[in-house]
């Protein structure tokens, strides 16, 4: 770790985790997370207003905890990064407001960055600098996308995405049909290990010869699984929960990995990165590894704690913005719930002159 690498604090509040991470270059120094997932569990999904309230309560204590863990002084930071979008509008706003106040009070540059690009960039903390280009498969409760990233700070191209449910959402819904609680991913993964993935032939969505090569669809699968379970129940038979979990999970990860590997081959990319909460799924990791090896592709998957939403990923992308001299955001930065993936960050409008920009030249502690 070189002392001249950028030291950046990142704030992430796009969903139900209040994350604050601190990195120096590609080295992780702190990753503090406060989650409101337990509060949402009884609703069977993330309730936006509950998430926003929890972010407000957790924000400052989580920042202070991250600084303490990293053992650095806030005055030594080279920048403050924050998820500007996409995500839940009210939740994003808490993080963006905190980041602005923090950047202003410390007189540090502010970088509003893209949540999806951050999910990709976090792998630098685990496996070192990202190869350029990198193919990324992002799968979580909120997203299922295939992205090609020639430059994570400036050029991220959407290859494909889900046309209905996100992969993680499908896990949650099937868990609900099986009365397994929320979130559904971990429990289905666990039960699937004891089940037979070939027991039931569930459909693979959008895999026909004329279907979009890189898009995903999990809605039909979800309905097929639910119908199958209902038929069993109606017939008065026991539902083989482990086999259903394994067969459903196999259908999801089969499509995800097949399309990701195909995208790599088509684009001549020899690195595949997998991120997002569903990347913690053990079968997805195993099948991706197997198929990548066969195709001569190097697979990069960060450890599960870095795959779910966290502040470290935002800090990682912020550090890359600093390292590559990308323009900072200004203090009017908006939380943008639908920030396009093609905007890895939100630079300020340096052309229309505004008094606010002068502050970056002043030192508040002079």
């Amino acid at each position, binding site marked *: 770790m070189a002392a001249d690498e950028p030291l950046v604090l990142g704030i992430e509040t796009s969903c139900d985790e209040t994350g604050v991470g601190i990195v120096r270059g590609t080295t992780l120094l702190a990753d503090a997370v406060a989650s409101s997932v337990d509060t949402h569990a009884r609703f069977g999904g993330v309730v936006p207003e509950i998430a926003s309230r929890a*972010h407000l309560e957790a924000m400052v204590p989580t920042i202070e905890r991250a600084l303490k863990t990293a053992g650095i002084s806030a005055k030594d930071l080279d920048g403050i990064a924050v998820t500007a979008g996409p995500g839940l509008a009210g939740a994003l706003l808490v993080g963006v*407001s905190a980041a602005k106040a923090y950047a202003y*009070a410390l007189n540090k540059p502010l970088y509003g960055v893209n949540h999806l690009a951050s999910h990709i960039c976090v792998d630098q903390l685990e496996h070192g600098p990202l190869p350029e280009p990198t193919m990324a498969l992002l799968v979580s409760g909120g997203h299922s996308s295939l992205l090609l990233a020639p430059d994570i700070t400036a050029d991220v191209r959407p290859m494909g995405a889900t046309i209905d449910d996100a992969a993680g959402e499908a896990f949650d819904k099937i868990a609900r049909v099986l009365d397994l609680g929320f979130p559904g991913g971990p429990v289905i993964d666990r039960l699937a290990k004891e089940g037979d993935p070939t027991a039931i032939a569930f459909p693979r969505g959008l895999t026909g010869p004329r279907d979009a090569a890189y898009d995903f669809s999990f809605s039909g699968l979800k309905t097929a699984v639910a119908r199958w379970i209902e038929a069993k129940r109606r017939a008065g038979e026991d539902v083989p929960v482990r086999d259903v979990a394994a067969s459903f999970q196999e259908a999801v990860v089969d499509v995800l990995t097949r399309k990701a590997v195909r995208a790599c081959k088509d684009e001549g990319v020899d690195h595949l990165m997998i991120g997002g909460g569903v990347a913690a799924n053990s079968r997805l990791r195993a099948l991706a590894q197997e198929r990548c090896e066969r195709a001569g592709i190097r697979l990069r998957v960060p450890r599960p704690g870095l795959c779910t939403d966290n502040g470290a990923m935002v800090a990682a992308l912020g550090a890359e913005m600093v390292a590559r001299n990308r323009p900072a955001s200004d203090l009017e930065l908006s939380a943008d719930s639908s920030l396009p993936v093609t905007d890895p960050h939100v630079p300020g409008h340096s052309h229309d002159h505004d008094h606010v920009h002068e502050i970056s030249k002043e030192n508040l502690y002079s």
Partner: protein
Amino acid sequence: MLLLAVDTATPAVTVALHDGTDVVAETSQVDARRHGELLLPAVHKVLAEAGLKLDAVTGLVVGVGPGPYTGLRVGLVTAATFGSVLGVPVHGLCTLDGLAYACGIEGPFVVATDARRKEVYWARYDDFRTRVSEPSVDRPADIAEQVAGVPVVGAGALLYPEVFPDARGPEHQSSAALASLAAERLAAGAEFLPPTPLYLRRPDAQVPKNYKVVTPQ
């Protein structure tokens, strides 16, 4: 002493600096949808007008609502973050108290702000410094009897003239009034509220209905 007061609990994004004697600088913009964009530039504006930097601030004052959720949190998280970095106290004040202080009425009156969904946030006062009821959220028609015969101050009053015939200004919250009230209270050694939001409503949380059967019956 230098107090920085912010309030984003109402459509107004309002910021003021107070030196313990007077308001040094203030700015207010009314734009219910852009609290997040407007607040920090407004803070910078009042500091620049006063020729001061943020590290001169010795205390923060923040309107804790009641107010519609999303905007309210912008002021609160900003004040909390400044307080943490500067190592200075963050004093919470009821947003309605700022409007009460600004109206300067010496006798009994009511303050009402717009709570949306055809409701108002409101509280009763004996005079402009003395609130005598906890803030509540209600439909105007439901409180008409309770507030009859006294002036009603604020946008919530002006929105429903049929229920509040003696509606008065100011319409919008000003951090200048909030800061002045805070300076008075600090000098008198009075208490403040914790800098946490007064939502007065439960979160809109739809508990999903029991699992819906997808097969046609």
